[in-house]
């Protein structure tokens, strides 16, 4: 007779294999990192550029260039670019992040030869037509108006601005920033940032010699832009914690976002802090979820995280809770942080978190794309694969005492900026 009360045997994840990319260079010196894996006849090619020349009076310069870069070149109109990319069943994404801009192509191998020239034109010959810029400004302002009515959006924006100030990580975008956008500023940024000296290519999928040769054929020759650029600078100093309250009279829920500047991936304690974060709010069974959602039913979801940027890191807790329980939720969050700082974690819970984090790492290496993503995490933090070896070792061996010490070192209620948008 089957005894359903007894859990089946299991093992802890032991071996996690990373596919390290092959490092190559195009004829013009652009670095290419390739993860060649997978059965499907498809590739993802990312052209990654560091964000440069940050000017706090023009905080939208880089992000707007990223949005409009596929909206017209010397040879192709916005519509022609879209039509040709779509015709070949390809996907062209332009992503702007805090540190990098990525132009990403997903394509079936058979169409690569047709699509790459379009990308070359975009990266070299974009002209940012005034007409496209005007439409962009109009539509972005409309989107911002809608977003400003979302409590979670407002909480996130206010939080970033409070801890990072008017830097590329925290600038407080308003309608007037859009009105101030000038075509000449976009062109200037384009010419300074989109140059081979500032480009790294990451390719993943079925990417073999033939594909590399194609890439070299189109992108290994000379590029159009070489203007000088200055790396973005950050000199963030931790600030004292504060309460920021934005009242919304008709809210039925309040958005809470709180946290502070902290270490990033380069710091030796980062893995330890990630484990502390996981215990607190980093997975479905976390203490914040168990208490505030599963026990009290105050929210649909609550979580915490650590973001590792190139020049900074930050810790945050985010949730949306019923307005009538907003104050109680804040009290419970503080309580959970204090417990983590004062009480030893039971081995039962720690063992679960160890296994969960290892399983989660294993599961995050699903395909060639995810192996490439893992490489990007370390490469752009100036780290190598030792980082993952140490991470896995720390997850397997951290002690309850170390967890208390780490929580005390990095989690400080009084140092946290606590943003509430809604009612409390």
């Amino acid at each position, binding site marked *: 007779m*089957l005894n*359903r*009360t007894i*859990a*089946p*045997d*299991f*093992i*802890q*994840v032991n071996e996690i294999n990373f596919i390290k990319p092959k490092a190559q260079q195009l004829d013009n010196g652009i670095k290419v990192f390739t993860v060649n894996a997978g059965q*499907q*006849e*498809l590739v993802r090619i990312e052209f990654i550029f560091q964000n440069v020349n940050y000017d706090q009076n023009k905080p939208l310069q880089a992000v707007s260039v990223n949005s409009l870069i596929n909206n017209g070149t010397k040879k192709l109109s*916005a*519509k022609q*670019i*879209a*039509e040709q990319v*779509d*015709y*070949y*069943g390809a996907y062209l994404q332009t992503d702007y992040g805090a540190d990098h801009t990525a132009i990403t192509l*997903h*394509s*079936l191998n058979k*169409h690569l030869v047709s699509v790459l020239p379009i990308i070359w034109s975009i990266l070299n010959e974009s002209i940012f037509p005034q007409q496209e810029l005007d439409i962009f400004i109009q*539509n972005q302002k*409309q*989107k911002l*108006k*809608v977003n400003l*009515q*979302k409590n979670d959006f407002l909480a996130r924006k206010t939080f970033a601005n409070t801890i990072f100030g008017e830097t590329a990580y925290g600038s407080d975008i308003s309608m007037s920033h859009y009105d101030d956008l000038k075509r000449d500023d976009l062109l200037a940024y384009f010419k300074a940032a989109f140059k081979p000296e500032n480009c790294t290519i990451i390719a993943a999928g079925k990417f073999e010699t033939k594909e590399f040769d194609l890439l070299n054929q189109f992108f290994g020759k000379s590029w159009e832009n070489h203007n000088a650029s200055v790396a973005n600078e950050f000199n963030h100093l931790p600030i004292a914690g504060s309460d920021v309250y934005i009242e919304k009279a*008709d*809210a*039925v*829920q309040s958005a809470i976002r709180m946290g502070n500047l902290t270490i990033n991936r380069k710091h030796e304690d980062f893995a330890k802090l990630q484990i502390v974060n996981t215990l607190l709010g980093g*997975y*479905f*069974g976390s203490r914040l979820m168990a208490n505030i*959602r*599963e026990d*009290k*039913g*105050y*929210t*649909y979801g609550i979580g915490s995280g650590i973001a590792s940027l190139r020049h900074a890191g930050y810790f945050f807790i985010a949730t*949306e*809770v*019923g307005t009538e329980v907003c104050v109680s939720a804040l009290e419970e969050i503080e309580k959970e942080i204090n417990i983590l700082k004062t009480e030893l974690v039971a081995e039962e819970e720690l*063992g*679960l*978190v160890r*296994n969960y984090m290892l*399983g*989660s790492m*294993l*599961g995050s290496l*699903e*395909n060639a794309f995810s192996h490439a993503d893992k490489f990007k995490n370390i490469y752009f933090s100036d780290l190598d694969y030792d980082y993952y070896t140490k991470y896995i070792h720390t997850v397997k061996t951290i002690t309850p005492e170390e967890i208390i010490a780490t929580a005390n070192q990095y989690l400080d209620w009084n140092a946290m900026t606590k943003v509430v948008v809604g009612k409390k």
Partner: protein
Amino acid sequence: MVDFNRFTLANGLKVLVHEDPTTPMAVLNILYDVGARDEEEGRTGFAHLFEHLMFGGSVNVPNYDEPLQRVGGENNAFTSNDITNYYITLPAENIETAFWLESDRMLSLAFSEKSLDTQRNVVMEEFKQRYLNQPYGDVWLKLRPLAYETHPYRWATIGQDLAQIETAKMEDVKAFFKKHYTPQNAILVVGGNVKTEDVKALAEKWFEPIPAGDKYNRNLPKEQPQNEARTLTVNASVPLNAIYVVFKMPPRLDKTYQVYDLLSDILSQGHSSRLYNSLLKEQQLFSDINAYMSSSLDEGLFIVEGKLIAGVEMEVAEKAIWAELEKIASHLVTDDELTKVKNKSESIMVFSEMSLLDKAMNLAYYELLGDAQLLNVEIDKYLVITAEQIQEAAKTTFKKEKSSTLYYLANA
């Protein structure tokens, strides 16, 4: 191509296995053939509330999530108007834990009052977060009852209102479980680094002892054909006027379903699409414009929605949408347009094979449609579609008397 093996247990549970030795992970996906369409009026939101309760402990296992996380696994679930789908990913070596947990909650739940109390609150907060506390969040709460008069698609999966969730009773929960959560009403897909014979042994061990239960025979109220244009005007504190025009379209299994999919792609997929270029770029009437389908198992909806540029008259914007719909109903799409959307569909199919979880979910869904093998021939249905078929679909569908229009206006 997604290969699979298939067998049925004595209690009627269908099992599909997709072997993928390239991953160290495994997925266990279980689809229950029950959604919001199976609810009764006045007790709506129940399929979704029930999905939450499935995580509140089962008859022999007091906590669902904890033992799964302990073996390095993760899980989640979703409810739609048609189905409820649960999935687990975990290291393949620990797959038996997934069988243990998933089979016990099919056998019976713990039905704890505490869990019901909490999840009622959680779902009410979800209702607020997604539908009430967002600009335009309640659009589908308004649109569904406008477009459907009798079919249960007239309510959203979250339910008609907060009160129906608040008053859900344990006896309702138990009855719902008995009626819908039976082996013969479910499809189990196991994928990843597994072998069919091992999956078979595990399925027989953990799932086969579960009683078959009574077969649920679906008999939903039929929607009468729509013969008059319907409109609804809503005023709300949102920054922009918006318009939603919806049309009835054939059910998922109709042979023209894929034609409608390409029709929506030509109108609205990406920056080369017609609505984007005509209405947003050239005429500059909208800052957002989209056309898409509800992809429903019963008669579904084809939706066109947009947010108007400040200062544009609603009448002008609406006319412009209709002009595009009439154009595609009266003129053949070009060869290039047709090739483009076919190529795009092909890409989508290939890219979806990059994800083990997507493959498992797709197998389960196509098995529900009648045969998982349909997944592997789906693209062929797209490749043979002609410009004439697209025009015909547009002509049959885009009629004033078949439309329901929601004007969502910004309070002055």
